[in-house]
Each structure stands twice: as C-alpha cells, then as structure tokens.
C-alpha cells in the first residue's frame, strides 16, 4: 500500500495532550486523491467527505477520576454517481489502495439499485461565510489540567460531605467536503465541556456548560452551583401529580424543545410524520415564541455548510407563535419548488434535512425574577429520558432529575420528589408566561441550542417516583 496523502507524523513523546489535526492542504490532498482515483474508475460524479476528530475526556465519580480517555480518528467517505444511481462507502484508512477500495465499494453499491430519476447533479463551487470557532487554549488543554480541575471540584464536594461525578472534556474536529464539480468546503472547531452531579444522601443536583472556548466557563463555579443545589435538594417531600406552574431552567427547556427540530424538515412534512402537517401558517404557539435556525449565532457551533456542501442559511422557523418556514435539502427544495436552505444531510439518506442550530427568542426575566413572581410552582433543574408518546400532538414523557424545588409565595421553600410528565410541547409553548435571556444550553437529550429559561403554566405531571 502506498500513501495517498502526506500526513503528519504522530508524536512519540509522552505528552497527554490530544493529537493534532491535519492542516487544510492535507485534507484537500486527500479529497483530490479520491477525485483523481474515482475518475479513473469510471464514476460520473464523486463527492468526498473527510472528517477528523481528536478528543479527550476525563470522567470522575465518587470524588475521583475513574475513566480517562483520548481518541484520534479520521474517516473518508465517498459518494459516487453512475448512470443515475448513487451510494456511499466510508473508510478510516487513507492509503491509495484503501481509498480505491472505498470508491469501488461505493460504485458497486450504486450499481445494485434501480435508477433514481430524482437524483440531482452534484453542486459546484459555493461561497461560505467565515466563522471562527477554533480556540487554541481549548485544543491545548491537557489531561493534567483536566485532572487538576476535577480534583478541585471533587475536593469541594468532599468538603461539603458530598459525592461528585462528572466529566471534563475537550477536543477538536474538522470536516472537509469536495466534489468532482469543483466544490470544496472546510471547517474546524474546538469543543469543551464540564458537567458535574453532586450527591448528598439521596439527593442530587447538576450543572453543566459547553463551549468552543474552554475559558467561557469555570468548572469550580459549576461545581459550587451543583453542590449548593444538591444541599437544597435533601429531604424532598412528595407532592401529588397534577398540573403545576413550572420554571424550567434552560437545560430543561432545551431537552424538551430539542425534540421539535426534525418537525421543521420539509421531508418530514412530505412524509406526513411532522407535527406541523396542516399547521403551517397557523397560530400554533404563544405570540412570545419565535424560533430561528442560525448557525452563525455567536453562541452556536457547527460548520457553515451542510452535508451536501451548500451554505447554511439563517431561517426564521416560527414568528411570534406561527410556523412560517421549513428547511430544505436540494431534493426537497426541488420537489417543493423552493430554494434549498443548506440543511441537507449527506446523501443518500431518507430523512432529507433538519435545522440543527435552533435559536429561541428570549426575554428579560431571570430565574430569580420568575421565582419571585410565582405564587406556587416548581423549579425544574433538568429533565431525563424524554421520549415521544404522540408524534402529532407532540406529547413527550420523561422525568425530572437532579433538583426539583417547590416555589411558594415568591421563594424556594424546599425540595420535591421527582415527577413523571406527559406534556405536549405544542401546548407547553402556548402556555409560556415568562422568558429569560436566551443562552447556550446543554443537556443530555438534545444537541446544544440557544434557549431561554421559561415559566410555563399547567405543565402536566402524571406520576411521582420514590426519590
């Protein structure tokens, strides 16, 4: 096997930092090699995705590190077109023999299927907005630095008589996309995350932050917040299920409304599996709800191009409670006689597209203000194990977790045992009384979005658990 591209020699040192990514010219060389090899195999059109990741994650529990990992990986994914048929093959080896094998596998897969009369020619050269989300201090954070920060967080928990568990991670990733019609796009970013659960007797609470810039959050402050709330969460009392006014912290909002994103895909409406079928243009949510998909928002992350290589556009999805626009892949746009919006997934796929960078409009009510103005309600830290019960009414079930508090007469008066909810997101977004400022929220059920805290009336809890 002979090498297709000149790659960096890996360090043989003992540094516990994550591996470095290839430089853009090296990515381009891999793309060009695939395009050259594909041309010689008879492919009519060829598209190449190169994705590389170098991540590291320190995991702690019982006030000590118990898992600590690092990974490096690079994949080359090839889509070929032959006689109106297309398919994809992916490899993680970049020698010429392996790349050629991937091309041949793609052609063989493509050849095995009927012609697709709707298959579009690949797009040519595009122009992209520049976004800079590669932050050197994030990429440079070492295992020792993560360990020291974890140690400080755990020491705080120990001092409080609590038990801490969580993660501290950082990494860098990049994607390049090129095709035989001259398209080339490349993007790199860094990412970092700190998450902590503090446990005190049978109570627990949680805090988490996530950013391209590791300096954007302070692990120690997050640890202090989780520890404080865990202490407040002890001696939880049981309340009867029913409808309550809730103050949802941003993570709780995110994990619920995150389930809406695919409903804004034009393909989902065409397939009649979106909750927006027969509802576009109608007053579906409250007038205080506006949602945009905007990869360029300063609190967002992600490439300025989609899986088809088109530039991502900012799309107003919901305007003052009325669903106004959908997002379109190239094929969905052609079928609907619209313009593609740059939200397509890599082809071939059956899902089409989706908005991946939701930004909700916010308000000016802080959580403290919401609590102060609430006669009786529940303050919700986080939700858990959310699943769809009714896809059209968008009824979701799930549990509260890691800190549920009773609010009475404008103040938090104690902890409450966790509830199960069965709640329509559509109904919930009709019942929003107050909005906080929109922030970059991170949870565990949905990918990161920019959402506000919300006070919602008549939120439906159906059952209570044992803690």
């Amino acid at each position, binding site marked *: 096997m002979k090498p297709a591209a000149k790659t960096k020699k*890996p360090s043989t040192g003992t540094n516990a930092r994550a591996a470095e990514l290839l430089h853009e010219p090296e990515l381009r060389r891999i793309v060009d090699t695939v395009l050259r090899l594909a041309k010689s195999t008879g492919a009519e059109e060829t598209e190449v995705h190169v994705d590389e990741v170098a991540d590291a994650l320190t995991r702690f529990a019982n006030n000590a590190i*118990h898992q600590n990992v*690092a*990974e490096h990986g690079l994949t080359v994914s090839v889509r070929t077109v032959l006689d109106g048929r297309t398919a994809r*093959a992916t490899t993680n080896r970049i020698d010429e023999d392996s790349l050629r094998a991937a091309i041949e596998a793609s052609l*063989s897969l493509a050849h095995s299927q009927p012609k697709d009369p709707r298959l579009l020619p690949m797009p040519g050269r595009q122009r992209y907005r520049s976004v800079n989300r590669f932050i050197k201090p994030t990429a440079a954070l070492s295992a020792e630095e993560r360990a020291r920060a974890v140690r400080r967080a755990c020491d705080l928990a120990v001092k409080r008589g609590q038990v801490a568990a969580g993660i501290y991670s950082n990494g860098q990733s990049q994607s390049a996309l090129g095709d035989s019609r001259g398209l080339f796009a490349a993007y790199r970013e860094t990412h970092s995350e700190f998450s902590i659960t503090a446990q005190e007797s049978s109570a627990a609470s949680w805090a988490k932050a996530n950013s391209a810039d590791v300096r954007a959050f302070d692990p120690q402050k997050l640890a202090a917040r989780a520890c404080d709330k865990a202490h407040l969460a002890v001696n939880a009392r049981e309340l009867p299920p029913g409808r309550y006014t809730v103050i949802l912290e941003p993570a709780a909002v995110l994990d619920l409304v995150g389930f809406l994103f695919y409903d804004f895909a034009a393909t989902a409406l065409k*397939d009649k599996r979106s909750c927006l079928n027969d509802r576009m243009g109608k007053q579906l949510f409250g007038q205080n709800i506006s949602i945009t998909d905007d990869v360029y928002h300063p609190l967002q992350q992600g490439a300025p191009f989609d899986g088809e290589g088109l530039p991502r556009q900012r799309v107003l999805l919901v305007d003052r409670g009325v669903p106004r626009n959908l997002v379109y892949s190239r094929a969905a746009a052609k079928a609907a006689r619209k313009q593609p919006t740059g939200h397509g997934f890599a082809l071939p796929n*059956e899902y089409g597209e989706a908005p991946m960078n939701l930004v909700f409009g916010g308000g000016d009510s802080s959580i403290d203000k919401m609590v102060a103005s609430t006669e009786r309600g529940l303050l919700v830290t986080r939700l858990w194990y959310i699943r769809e019960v009714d896809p059209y009414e968008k009824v979701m079930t799930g549990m509260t977790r890691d800190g549920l508090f009773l609010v009475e007469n404008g103040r938090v008066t104690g902890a409450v045992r966790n509830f199960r909810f069965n709640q329509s997101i559509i109904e919930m977004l009709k019942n929003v009384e107050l909005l906080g400022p929109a922030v970059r929220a991170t949870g565990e059920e949905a990918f990161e979005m920019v959402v506000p805290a919300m006070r919602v009336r008549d939120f439906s809890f159906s059952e209570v658990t044992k803690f």
Partner: protein
Amino acid sequence: MWDLCTNALDTARPRGAAYGDVRVMHLRQRDLTTKNGQVGTLSQSESIGLGIRVLANGAWGFASTDRLTREGVAACAAQAVSIAKASALAKRGEVVLASEKAYVDSWQSPFRKDPFEIPLETQLALLLAVDAEMRRVKGVTLTETGMEFRKIDSWFASSIGSRIHQRKVISGCGIAATSFQKEEIQKRSYPNSFGGQHSLQGYELVESLDLLKNAPIVAEEAAALHSASQCPEKIGTLILGSSQLGLQIHESIGHPIELDRVLGQEANFAGTSFLTLDQLNKLKYASGIVNVVADARLDHGQGLGTFAYDDEGVPAQCTDIIKDGRFRGYLSNRETAHLVGLDRSSGTMRTESWNRLPIIRMTNVSLLPGTWDYDDLISDTHDGILMETNRSWSIDDRRYQFQFSTEIGWEIKGGKKIRMLKNPSYSGITTEFWNSCEAICKFDYWTLWGTPNCGKGQPMQTMGTGHGASPARFRNVRIGTAFSNQ
C-alpha cells in the same frame, strides 16, 4: 495484528503500566433502507484501529488511534500511560483487579449465510417488494424498510498473556408502516419497532422473518388503528407481547443490575440504581415464577449479548440475576467483582469500537420461560389488555418508575381478544410491577430479542444487548396513563 498489540503493551510497560490490555478492532457495516418505494440509505463502511487501556500509578488511562504504524501505536500507548498518571492526580484509592487466567483462543460466531456475500440486488429487491406490499394498503402514508449487517473482528491482548481473536457477524432487519389521518399518526412495525430484530446471525435471520407475508398485516393494522378505541385508563390486568417484555427487562432489570451504575460511576449521565449493595440476596425483586439470567454463552442463543470472551478477556458466563423472584446477582467486571463478594468478574465488559473504553454492559439478560401456552393465557384472562410492539419507553435515573407505550393493544374479555385499542400505555414501579407477574408463556413462545441501540458511557457508546422473553401476564397494573391528561 498481534504485532500491533505487542508493540502497544511493550511501549506501555516500561513507562509505568502495571497492567495493560489492547484491542485492535476491524468493523465492517452495510446499511440499506427504503422509503415509500425508493432506496433511502445505501452505504457501507469500515473502520480499523487500536485502543489501549493501562493501569499506572494506580489509576486508569485509555488512548486510541487509527494510525496503525509502529510509531502511531507507540505514541498511543505512551499517551495512555500519561493519561493514567494524570488520573492519579485525582484518585482516592487503588484499583484492584480480580484475578483471571490468560487465554489464547480464536472464536467465530456461527452463521449460515454471510450477509456481505449475498448480492445487494437480492437484498434491495426484497426490501422494495416488501415496501410495495405495504403501500398497497389504503391509508398508509409512509412505508419504511431496512437491513443492517455488521462483521466485527477483534484482537485482544493483555499484559497477563491473553491473546484472543473473535469474529462476530450481526444481522438486523425490520419494516414499518405509518398512517397519518385526521390529526393522528399511527404506526406498526415488524418484527419489532426501531429497526426490527437484530441477532448474532447471518442472512438467515432475514430469511426467517417472512417479511413479505407480514408486510400487509402491519400496513392494515396501521391504517385500522385510527378507528380503534382509545386504550382506557384503569388499574387492570396486562399481558405483554414478548418484544415489549424484552424492552421492559432491558430497562427495569438489565440497567439496574449494572454494578458501575450501582457504585455511582454513571451518576452524572446514565444514572444510578435502586439496587444498592445491601439488596443483594435480600430483595424480593419479583414474584416467585420470575427467573432472570445474564447469559453471554452461545448455549443461551445467538443474541447481541453473545460472545466467547468479554473485552476484558474474561470468558462468557451465565449469572443468576433473579432466582425464584429473589435478587441474586449484578453485572460486574474485574475491578468491581470483589465489592459484591465475588472472586471473579461476571464477564460483562464490552466496547462499541476500538476507540472506546470497555464498560460494564448487559449481555443477554433474559426472562426464562414459564409453563403457559399462549392460547391458554388469553383464554384464562377474564378482563385485560394485551400490548404489543414498543412505541415509547422512559424510566427514571434510578430505574424505579417507568412508563411504556406500545403501537397496538387488544382488549381481552371473557378469554377472547375482542377489539383493537390505540395508544396503549402502562406505567409502574419496577419491583411492584415484577412482583405482579403471575403467568409466563413457555419456551415455544420465547424469543431472544436484540436491542441494538443501548446508549451508555461518556463518550457515549452504543451497544447491542439481548433479551429473551415470552409473553407474560401482570395484575393490577396502571394502564393508560400516558394519554390521561390529553
């Protein structure tokens, strides 16, 4: 591959690794789907790389790489040791591993037809024919079919001298029909929802499912559900079909018995467990007819949790989890076994890929068959609801309180299925639910279901698990909760 493994271990040892294990893995996958008569996904992928886990200064480090050169592997091994030493900056005790023998072995999962050797045209032709059968039914608005095949080679080597090669062939297949009418979406799937059935078999799995025969049945049921009655809200008798019971086992028995959860190692993400260590051999988990095992051996069946050795080099075993209703065992690894009085791991460490750390995972966690004929179970039920094929599932982070809904329900009155019910759901508390189990069907109705998408760990890993179950009856279950406020 053994050279790569040796190179990694030889690099780690002089740098301070007191123990090390290495996995080189080569994963191949093929995915085919159709939607509304058109090919959807058509893709193939392969990935090969190496991951090394080391114990240095009494703490763990793990690193992985796809740079399978001598230099790349050495750098990866050195990085793992450095990471372990960093871990030691925040340790509060020494890692103690249960003893285990060294094994030199090679094993391949049994299959009759290699799915990667079956022509793609044959596979696609079957899916498109099944898709067409579903679309012939009036009222069906979306049809979906899919097949997924995997071939996984792993070469495991450890510093105690093990050298184990395993090859697994995994197949999966499923179909679904969806109907949107009058502001309601209804769906039916076969043989199971969320991708169908998955097992450690070759293409013979697909051929055994008789997709063409079942396509019109699920399509007609999807359309008919719109005119079915709403599942009532009540406390009553519930019969679960075997695939739904398989998921019930997964969520309310399989996860709580994971010892890493019990010990708080998953507290920040997957959660903990109500099965604290003081419950072992004491808790009456279920009624006396309930027997559950975690069995990774081939004798149990060709499940997604079947293997010869786990990813820590421990041979496959069968562990009693619930015996005659009593809680008897956890899923453990070499690090945690001693905490529950065991001198040996129960062999449940599994990894998704070369770039992930092995963690405690379900193997095949199965409810052993009972004594009932299915027809007798129905005819013996005076007033109950039969629920089949999962639609949604949710359980709290300590695995007490759950709620499931299924695609279809059937009202049973006077020993007969009298009418179809839509939007069925049930909920409860784990131990109360399992203690209400009072009839389990016999082996003739027992299926080893595959759950291919179990997520756990940080970074997230997806793992396949097996769950054998036959239909069973439960008394005094809360039914219809999910839709009670809508």
